[in-house]
């Protein structure tokens, strides 16, 4: 399927979901939907570096918070419309991603993961000590109550996050099927062999950290308007780092579908648990699910479905891994 058609289908599905939510006329749906969509963006962004290139980033919260604090800083200067804030937040996080990549990408595996975790700690310390954006006290953002013609402002925020999610998924899918995606896959598999095949691994890794960071920053940019009060401990919350790793892993990391499925499943589950049991139980659920999936389905839900479909060569997913026009696996 061509990417422009895919983009339109995503828009249509998103539009239909949004229209359905509007018909329900319950602001809570948008309130919860925003969080789920935010995780769709975060886990899709994480997967570009973590799933496609195999570099596990524990610093999602740092990029997310950078986007959020860009908004806070700009809001204090001059309140810009949210789409513009998205661009600024994305640019700031993308730039930091590029710098971080340059400093850390010679590290591999656990060492890279530790470096990204350290980045999050360093940035949080900087923000805590930056008085202009509120420091450790935090910053209040007073958002408009309503926006025409949608009604409650949270609906507008949810719509923006929906569009961002569509953009993130379309980009991820586009990357996956392009020259860039093949390059990323070789980095995940074997960097030495990739270089020997002409793949400029360092440059590709920098591109990946930049795109990944930029989307995380964009996901964070509307956050101050959503939450109303930002403080370092909430913007740099461990939940973001853990969830954005857990969701792709549960869904499956090699395609764009995985993070989407993971984020929708886990994100919705967390929202349901928050209102029915307790919000404190969220990370516990993530932990249990993650352990379960690592044992039962190490390649996530997508891997599980694929394994099942490969017994039927006509399957939709069975073919994708084996190639688009595959003549079917030989017995």
């Amino acid at each position, binding site marked *: 399927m061509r990417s422009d058609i895919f983009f339109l289908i995503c828009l249509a599905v998103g539009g239909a979901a949004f229209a359905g939510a509007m018909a329900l006329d319950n602001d809570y749906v948008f309130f919860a939907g925003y969080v789920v969509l935010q995780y769709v963006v975060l886990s899709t962004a994480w997967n570009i570096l973590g799933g496609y290139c195999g570099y596990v980033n524990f610093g999602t919260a740092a990029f997310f918070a950078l986007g959020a604090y860009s908004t806070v800083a700009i809001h204090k200067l001059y309140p810009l419309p949210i789409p513009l804030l998205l661009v600024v937040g994305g640019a700031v996080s993308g730039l930091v991603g590029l710098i971080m990549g340059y400093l850390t990408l010679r590290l591999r595996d656990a060492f890279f993961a530790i470096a990204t975790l350290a980045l999050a700690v360093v940035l949080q310390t900087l923000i805590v000590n930056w008085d202009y954006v509120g420091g450790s006290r935090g910053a209040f953002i007073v958002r408009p109550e309503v926006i025409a013609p949608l009604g409650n402002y949270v609906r507008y925020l949810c719509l923006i996050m929906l569009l961002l999610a569509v953009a993130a998924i379309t980009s991820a899918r586009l990357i996956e099927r392009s*020259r860039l995606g*093949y*390059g990323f*896959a*070789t980095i*995940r*598999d*074997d960097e*030495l*062999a*990739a*270089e*020997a*095949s*002409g*793949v*400029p*691994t360092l440059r590709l890794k920098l591109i990946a950290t930049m795109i990944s960071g930029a989307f995380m920053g964009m996901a964070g940019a509307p956050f101050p308007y959503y939450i109303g009060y930002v403080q370092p401990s909430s913007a740099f919350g461990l939940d973001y780092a853990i969830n954005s790793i857990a969701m792709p892993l549960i869904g499956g990391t*090699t395609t764009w579908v995985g993070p989407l499925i993971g984020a929708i499943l886990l994100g919705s589950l967390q929202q349901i648990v928050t209102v029915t049991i307790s919000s404190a139980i969220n990370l516990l659920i993530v932990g249990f699910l993650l352990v379960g999936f690592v044992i039962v389905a190490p390649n996530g839900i997508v891997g599980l479905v694929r394994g099942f479909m490969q017994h039927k060569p006509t399957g939709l997913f069975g073919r994708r*891994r*084996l*190639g688009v*026009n*595959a*003549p*079917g*696996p*030989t017995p």
Partner: protein
Amino acid sequence: MTALLEIDKLGKRFGGFVALENISLTVGPGERVGLIGPNGSGKSTLVNCICGTLRNEAGSVRFDGHPLEGASTHQRTRRGLARTFQLPRPFASLSLLDNMRVPLLYAVGARGRRHTDIEARCVELLREVGLESKAWRLPRDLTQVEMRKLELARAMAAEPKLLIADESMAGLTPSEVEDILALLRRLNTEGITIILIEHIMRAVMSFSQRLVVLVSGRKIADGPPDEVVRNPEVESAYLGQ
């Protein structure tokens, strides 16, 4: 005739250990050169220095008339220098076809040449090594000899001027060795210069036009195979006399 590969007084140390010392070697276009030496003599280190995986401290390498100093591995591949690895290193999550696709996209594509139908070219490359029927399989489904063939096919996909085959035949049966040799000979008749690094003497002797011997990081012989194996220094290095 200008040389394709010129190595001049190349030296490489790992801490206090001298891995390569004062290696000079010239390979002309279209040549078939065998590179032999006991374990630890520096063969793979030399390959790694030529391909840019390791940086040499002394001396220089020129390829196709240009110095390679400062060029990264992928830049060298794009200039026409391809290698296979001693232990096959396929892209495990990609099908064989996509394994071929990577050098086509990145090495050949970077030279401004684009195959109109990349997929057809991938299949053609796999057909040349007899892996066409497994084009949609993953590397983990292959046998050892097929894995070596995949490694060679991927190196070939980059359309190199010089192919360095690092122990492509280790651990194979005699008939499998013949398979690989025939493949390499065919590539050579197509105009590709080949450096063969190998322990199996029978294979090296029948393949090489010239034999280079490394011992303890030094080049001790360079010449026609029959002469080289009669060289007393080579004999003593191999037989420990």
